């Protein structure tokens, strides 16, 4: 079942950047990739419980702020040590300049 919730306006995230989003005791990382598309992953790194929104986005990759674990934020795929467990990804859509996240 789809459960779309509003995150924020697209302008609030710079291109090639990431923002934290909390809702109902869950936390996500919301990414705006260089070409403008929006992606969402679970908020915390799979190595330790560190929020990814303090990390660095370069192209398709988010690098964890703590020990530099890297994930492809479009697919959630862990790119190698120290992270081996993938990130969960979540559907998003942009409508009238607003970002929506499907939290189901």
């Amino acid at each position: 079942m789809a459960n779309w919730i509003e995150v924020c306006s697209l302008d609030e995230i710079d291109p090639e950047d990431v923002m934290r989003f909390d809702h109902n005791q869950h936390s996500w990382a919301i990414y705006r990739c260089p070409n403008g598309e929006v992606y969402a992953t679970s908020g915390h790194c799979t190595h330790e419980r560190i929020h990814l929104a303090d990390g660095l986005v370069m192209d398709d990759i988010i690098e964890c702020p703590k020990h530099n674990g890297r994930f492809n934020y479009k697919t959630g795929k862990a790119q190698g040590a120290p992270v081996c467990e993938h990130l969960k990804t979540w559907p998003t859509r942009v409508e009238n300049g607003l970002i929506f996240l499907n939290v189901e």
Partner: protein
Amino acid sequence: MYGILIIGAGEAGVQAALTLRQQGYQGQITLLGDESGRPYERPPLSKQCLLDGSDAPLISGSQQLEALNIQYRNGQRVVAIHRNQQQVELASGEQLPYERLLLATGAQARTLTIEGMPAEQVLTLRSRGDAERIRQRARPGQNVVMIGAGFIGLELAASLRTLGLEVTVLESAERILQRAVPASIASLIAAEHQQQGVEIRCQSSVEYASSTDYGYQLHLLNGERINADWVLAGIGSVPNTHLAQDAGLNVDNGIQVDHCLRTSDPMIFAAGDCARFPLDLYNTEVRLESWRCAREQGEIAALNMLGANTIYNVAPWFWSDQYQLGLQMVGLPIGVTQEVIRDFNGSRLVFLLNAHQQLVAACGVGPGNTVARDIKIAERLINQGLHPSAEQLADTSISLKSLLKG
């Protein structure tokens, strides 16, 4: 097929073993470690493990060793390398042949003898067992004296203070972290310790100790006395090079390796805290004690044992956590003539430039992970040989990331 033998199941050794399989190597891989249990991460030992009594987390990927058909043998100490026979000898007398050998033996904490104080009252931290001993000893209200204000010493001071001990840090140098970070960063860390109630005394050394009814008293060179229930020494570490040395390999504060992490014997490689290697980016030779470097070198040594010629030539990266402060440093502060400070929201970044106005290192400290992103950008600037001007680095209206895009 005798396969590849790895001595030391730490960060470098485990990563090398995993990389060999990822590269499709089908031969036998034997990972020998002299500690008991599964391979674990050391950085949390001075941080989370002390604070909440948790076990050291296992090295990521090490759960798959067996599934990847890597023979992990713990509690096995190698006592000799017989290079002519291409064999190593275990403490049990067992001989194991190798085609390629990786030394990933790490380092050990430098120990300290204080006249008048029994050795068991002066603790150090390197292993899971050391952390357990410290945890069992520590009780709120005790007076503990930390000798040495390096990273491990300061992390221990922070953790023990958080647990409610009265902590005094003695440092013989003029300031804390003297060789490691710029003064403008060290002063923020010292201020946080003071704020938390840790007393830091620089230019202080212990002459001897005497026992009292309630513990010990440390007599400092300047005549002062400090009460101590027990003492911790954080005075650096010594690389585990004796095996290499006895086998006649070149050793000089670390096992000497070339750009490809090969020792003076082409069949034998070394990686991690035990290795001293050329770092062209800085036109120097170094031995590092850095978690990430150990892992990256393990990976590179594995590639090269399989015949590649990959070199390790990136700006070293390091982090430290004390209280709620996160510190990160990238690069080596070599030939620094100029410091550029960039302050924002309670965090500080310091860029270090050499006489040619080239960015050689950056260090930042702030609450949590606030400096992480900028340090990552500095890392890329250094590794890509980009040299923004001091003015650009200082100008907070310029995003650092834009400097990366040229």
